């Protein structure tokens, strides 16, 4: 019998993408996150979850529901409202050999614990050679009248801080597979889970161990235009693409922002010759800006049109639904931009 919080798994992680003969179960994006936490906590006794209201209550969004009952108060820890301490003590626990997964109740709140993330965790390995294996779960994104403090997409903050990995899955299977991969990573990983996908998006998810690499994925094939998106925008992009003839518009789901799958982006754009980059985040210095710069720098001669971007303007996300929709990219606006590029 192993001592709690000390047993590391025996087997080396193996990337095992879902195959046709694997058992799958249909679940929501949110259930897939819970499933990943449960699987990884069963597999590795060093994994613990901590955050505000994550214990018996199961978290503000119920992402940790059932974990307290199964794993107990040491491994599913309710914390005071103190993001710097949640993140900072996780850094310490990681340095001391555990694998903490922090839930930041809303991604917007991470700003109150930012220093521990960008100055302590992010710089640790480069400065000292010490690994900080921890995951920050960040419920992010808008679309449901959350207002300026419950709707942000702060991923660019983390992309600009060296030493942090940043991932943002769009499907239940990827949510499970990439969270599992994040927990097994030896570095701090910011895991952006889009709140608007939590219960709206269902899909088949492999049962048991499931790992997805931090790479991009073509989710819809096309020959004339690539739409690059991640998170909730992947679904809008796919819907916009479906308004055109089959085979015209390709949708590339970035899935990971750091590392950024440059090869996948360039391969797609070189094939289609046109690119539309969509961000739900504010436009300036967003992930999409990095993608646009990459394409301009390394695929210029393959382009048949301007690199187009569609993102939220540089204002906070408004509360009133009409105002919010005026700010966030919509399927109509994506389809309109795609049409203009196709006609270019």
């Amino acid at each position, binding site marked *: 019998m192993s001592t709690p*919080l000390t047993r590391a798994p025996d087997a080396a992680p193996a990337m095992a993408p879902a195959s046709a003969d694997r058992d799958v179960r249909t679940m929501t994006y949110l259930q897939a996150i819970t499933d990943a936490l449960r699987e990884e906590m069963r597999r590795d006794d060093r994994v613990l979850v901590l955050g505000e209201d994550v214990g018996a209550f199961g978290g503000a969004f119920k992402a940790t529901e059932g974990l307290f009952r199964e794993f107990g108060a040491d491994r599913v820890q309710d914390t005071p409202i103190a993001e710097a301490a949640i993140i900072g003590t996780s850094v310490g626990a990681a340095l001391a050999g555990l694998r903490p997964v922090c839930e930041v109740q809303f991604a917007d709140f991470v700003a109150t614990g930012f220093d521990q993330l960008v100055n*302590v965790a992010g710089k640790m*390995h480069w400065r*000292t050679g010490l690994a*900080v294996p921890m995951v920050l779960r960040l419920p992010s994104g808008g679309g449901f009248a959350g207002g300026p403090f419950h709707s942000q997409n702060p991923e660019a903050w983390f992309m600009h801080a060296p030493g942090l990995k940043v991932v943002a899955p769009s499907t239940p299977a990827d949510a499970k597979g990439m969270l599992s991969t994040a927990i097994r990573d030896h570095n701090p990983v910011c895991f952006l889970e889009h709140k608007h996908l939590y219960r709206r998006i269902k899909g088949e998810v492999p049962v048991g161990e499931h790992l997805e690499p931090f790479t991009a994925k073509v989710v819809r094939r096309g020959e004339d235009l690539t739409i690059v998106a991640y998170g909730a925008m992947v679904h809008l992009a796919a819907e916009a693409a479906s308004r055109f003839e089959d085979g015209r518009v390709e949708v590339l789901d970035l899935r990971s922002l750091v590392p950024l799958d440059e090869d996948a982006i360039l391969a797609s754009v070189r094939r289609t010759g046109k690119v539309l980059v969509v961000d739900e985040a504010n436009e300036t210095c967003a992930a999409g800006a990095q993608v646009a710069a990459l394409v301009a720098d390394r695929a210029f001669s393959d382009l048949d049109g301007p690199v187009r971007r569609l993102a939220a303007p540089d204002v906070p996300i408004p509360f009133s639904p009409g105002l919010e929709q005026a700010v966030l990219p919509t399927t109509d606006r994506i389809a309109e931009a795609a049409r203009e590029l196709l006609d270019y």
Partner: protein
Amino acid sequence: MLVEDPHRTTRERPVGHPTLTRADREALLGFMVGMRTFEERGVALYKQGRTPGSFYDGHGQEAIPVGAAFAMGPDDVICSPLIRDLGAHLVRGTDLTEIIRHHLGRDNRLSRGREGNVHFGDPAKGIVAMVSMLPDMFVVAVGMAMAFRLRGERRVALTFFGDGATSPGAWHEAMNFAGLRKEPVVIVCENNGLAYSTPTSAQFAVSPADRAAAYGMPGVVVDGNDVEAMFAATHAARERALRGDGPTLIEARTMRMHGHGSHDDARYVDPAVLDAWRERDPIATYAARLQGDGVDVDALRAAVLDRLDAAVDAALATPLPDPASATDGLFATEEPGPLGRGDAPWSGFAGPGDAGGPGRPAGAGDAGTGR
């Protein structure tokens, strides 16, 4: 300003000075002399333009890191020694030549030239490097202590910060977490009267030690210029933590005798205050006491100097890091290694009697073979 009864607000007094041997006492003096000698050389190297960036010293505060670190066991971690705490590194046995290489920006295994001044740690010795945002590493230390507690290990985390670090919100968050969960963390607040140029009178209305009770832990005021008092208080705090009774905040009262860094002439400090504190120099007073007990202090100083000279020569002969290495190693690719391997030469007073002595402070005998 700070000349007062150091035990005025003590609520839990150290219970004597447990079993310090003569060898221990020589070691305590040796580490303090080692720290001061090193730092005097460091200032000189900085003024000669050989040290890039800046240099910070803890002149007059040597008793605090030396006394505190001396009370730790080999499995304990220090997270983290700060700019006045070189002595803690020396007690743990971090290789002296490597430390000097680090200061000079030469290639070295502690920081590979990526960090400067006292921003280094030796994981093999259970030391994590500090960051500049204080008291961030206090928060991290609480997390380490949490891991030790959850795994049922008999280990503590020792953390250092200054009076200035008791103002940011992170201090409150760490105090609250540590007190709430009774984490095995030993908290040393070095109250040297100044946060850069700002005196404590302009920083807070209630002293850090008095605030400790509000977080459910004892606050102990110790004479930070008395190495044995620091040792005893830290030893008692460690014992308390290992009993499961939680953290202790030790407020070590002292005076910053130099500027914030070598670039700072500290003309904002009243010279009369410095004169008063100079009379209480932790090394001079302890050396006089040990000399009275028959310790050959001159020989101890000479041995420290010899080792320092050799280490400086070796460090100056070391090349600068390869510029091409600046971008590698951002991400870890392997499972984290253990922090501290139990082979730190010191288990404080409980260590073998011959572990102390004048030879130790300069870090001689450590081949520097850590990770």
